[in-house]
């Protein structure tokens, strides 16, 4: 009984809060134009930032797909850099695993309730987030997608790596390194997210289109879990003794492939191409055990997402698709100055 009372009180409080949050969408911000024309991102925000300061700092929640992974820590670094530069307040949060779509939705709900100036979101599942995004749109809160982005018309901009393009480049490199023919396989981190699907298809399609003599014999998923990816990669190598190369689609997958090569003593016999960075992967690229990897620019992703959110909140025009780029690194070029901020530990 007592528990019921407490529950009732809590529920009614929640109701009041959500009502308040829902009704008082009295943000002055002008409705951001969804169809912002490309290019010409105005670069004169300095004086405007001053104005905002007087009225209290702008608040922008950044909701990522995770926070534990080194990649997300680098995104966070970039987001914080932008927050400092534009003098806005940000929070950075994300669910513990990339399967927790529900947790992320809760975070988004909570963020919306705080009536932010804008929201940055890397959706785990775009479709699941759409009702909330519509709510944000109705409340004139601009949404900026980052990383895998949000598959909808609502976000005013998306700061991301073109996964398919980057993976296609990895396929070109794979073809070059194995001499244009033979069997290759993929260890992918998942089969539902935009990054997983984009990288898998980007790689596979390029092989199919350009390299008729290369056969993709297997595509398996390791969930980005280092240990599972190791066993997945080992099994693939056992099943296909003539395998020439493997592509690991993110850090955990690439490390899994690397471990498998080590454990089966296939160094030098199998071409390994990775994705992202991380200390182990960097060391392996340096020693040549991984022939090369694609790196995104996580710091840039975080920075550009917050930058776009600030501009959108002020009603400035921004580019719809902000390509944050990718780079190929191997032992010959990875010590270059340009890679320092990209190759996180």
């Amino acid at each position: 009984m007592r528990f019921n009372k407490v529950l009732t009180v809590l529920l009614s409080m929640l109701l009041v809060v959500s009502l308040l949050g829902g009704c008082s969408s009295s943000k002055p911000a002008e409705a951001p134009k969804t169809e912002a024309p490309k290019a010409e991102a105005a670069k004169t925000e300095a004086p405007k930032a001053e104005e905002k300061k007087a009225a209290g700092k702008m608040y922008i929640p950044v909701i990522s797909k995770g926070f534990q992974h080194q990649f997300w820590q680098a995104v966070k670094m970039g987001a914080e850099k932008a927050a400092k530069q534009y003098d806005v307040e940000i929070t950075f949060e994300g669910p513990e695993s990339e399967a927790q779509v529900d947790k992320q939705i809760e975070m988004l709900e909570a963020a919306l309730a705080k009536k932010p100036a804008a929201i940055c979101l890397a959706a785990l599942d775009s479709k699941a987030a759409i009702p909330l995004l519509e709510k944000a749109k109705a409340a004139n809160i601009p949404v900026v997608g980052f990383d895998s982005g949000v598959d909808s018309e609502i976000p005013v901009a998306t700061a991301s790596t073109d996964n398919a393009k980057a993976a296609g480049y990895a396929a070109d490199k794979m073809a070059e390194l194995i001499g244009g023919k033979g069997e290759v396989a993929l260890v992918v981190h998942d089969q539902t997210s935009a990054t997983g699907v984009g990288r898998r298809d980007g790689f596979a399609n390029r092989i199919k289109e350009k390299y008729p003599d290369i056969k993709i014999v297997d595509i398996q998923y390791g969930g980005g879990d280092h240990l599972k990816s190791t066993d997945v990669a080992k099994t693939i190598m056992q099943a296909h003794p003539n395998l020439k190369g493997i592509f690991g689609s993110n850090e955990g997958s690439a490390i899994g492939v690397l471990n498998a090569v080590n454990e089966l003593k296939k160094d030098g016999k199998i071409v390994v191409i990775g994705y992202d960075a991380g200390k182990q992967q960097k060391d392996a690229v340096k020693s040549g055990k991984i022939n090369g990897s694609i790196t995104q620019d996580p710091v840039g992703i975080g920075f550009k997402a917050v930058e776009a959110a600030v501009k959108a909140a002020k009603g400035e025009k921004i580019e719809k698709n902000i390509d944050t780029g990718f780079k190929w690194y191997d032992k010959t070029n990875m010590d270059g100055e340009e890679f320092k901020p990209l190759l996180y530990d």
Partner: protein
Amino acid sequence: MELGMNLKKPLLKSDATQKLLAFAGLIFLFVGFSLASPNFFKFDNIVSIILATCVNGVLALGVSFVIITSGIDLSIGTVMTFSAVMSGVFITFMKLPIPIGIIGGILAGAACGIVNGVTITKMKIPPFISTLGMMMITKGLSLVISGTKPIYFNDSPFYRQISVGSILGSMIPGFEIPNAVLIFFAAAIIASILLTKTVLGRYTFALGSNEEATRLSGVNVNFWKTTIYTLCGAYCGLAGILMSSRLNSAQPALGQGYELDAIAAVVIGGTSLSGGEGTIIGTIIGAFIMSVLTNGLRILSVPQEWQTVITGVILILAVYADIVRRKK
């Protein structure tokens, strides 16, 4: 379940049938996959399967004891991670010698087990809840302590050899069985001796069959229960060492979900969740069934979605077979 007092006799008999049943299942899978793919039954692949079983197997060994007492431990996956992180702290951060780091990691796991035992016996919190709490605590602590970053063992190349090195291979050329496998088998033999030959094992079964009767016959139930959870924690610690040494790093974000695989292995091996029965050999067979299944389906390039479905079906069938056998 069984009559509380008459523990030994019906147990032995049902154990034998269960072992046979599970073992037959394992053989069936082996033969099936060997026929389906020429790449399955090869020395390297068999070694891969055994190596892939080690972490899950050691976790399953530990949790077998707990399940036989009719308890449950949901914290095993994250306690494993916590132990791995702690050994990383000892070895990489504090630069302690590797053996101390290993013992420290195992003790960290055991410490979590003690806390589980105390919350269950003294605070009277049901095992499901207290170990669920411990699951979250250790998961969070692993991230806090490691600073959400993996801890690498790059300065201690020997650490990696614990799992993937091969003492056997260095003695007998070509017989490259990784050390992790030997450690796993040793851990299994110890578990089997503890369960069948010692007073700890007897009380484990007694607690699971009838806790009240055990208490009334003058056994210090709280002490033995706590000991059993501690033992389980220590096994998680060992699993943590094996995992981190294989990955050459303590990955603080891994671990959750591993507990369910381990519990599934125990159950497939014929240990009843209502307690009082179970064998170590059953657990090992259960763990092997799971990894043979995953390996075989992967070799056949069955899409991963279906692999999960099939594993689920096998789990249900295995437990159903057990129930049917029991009714007879």
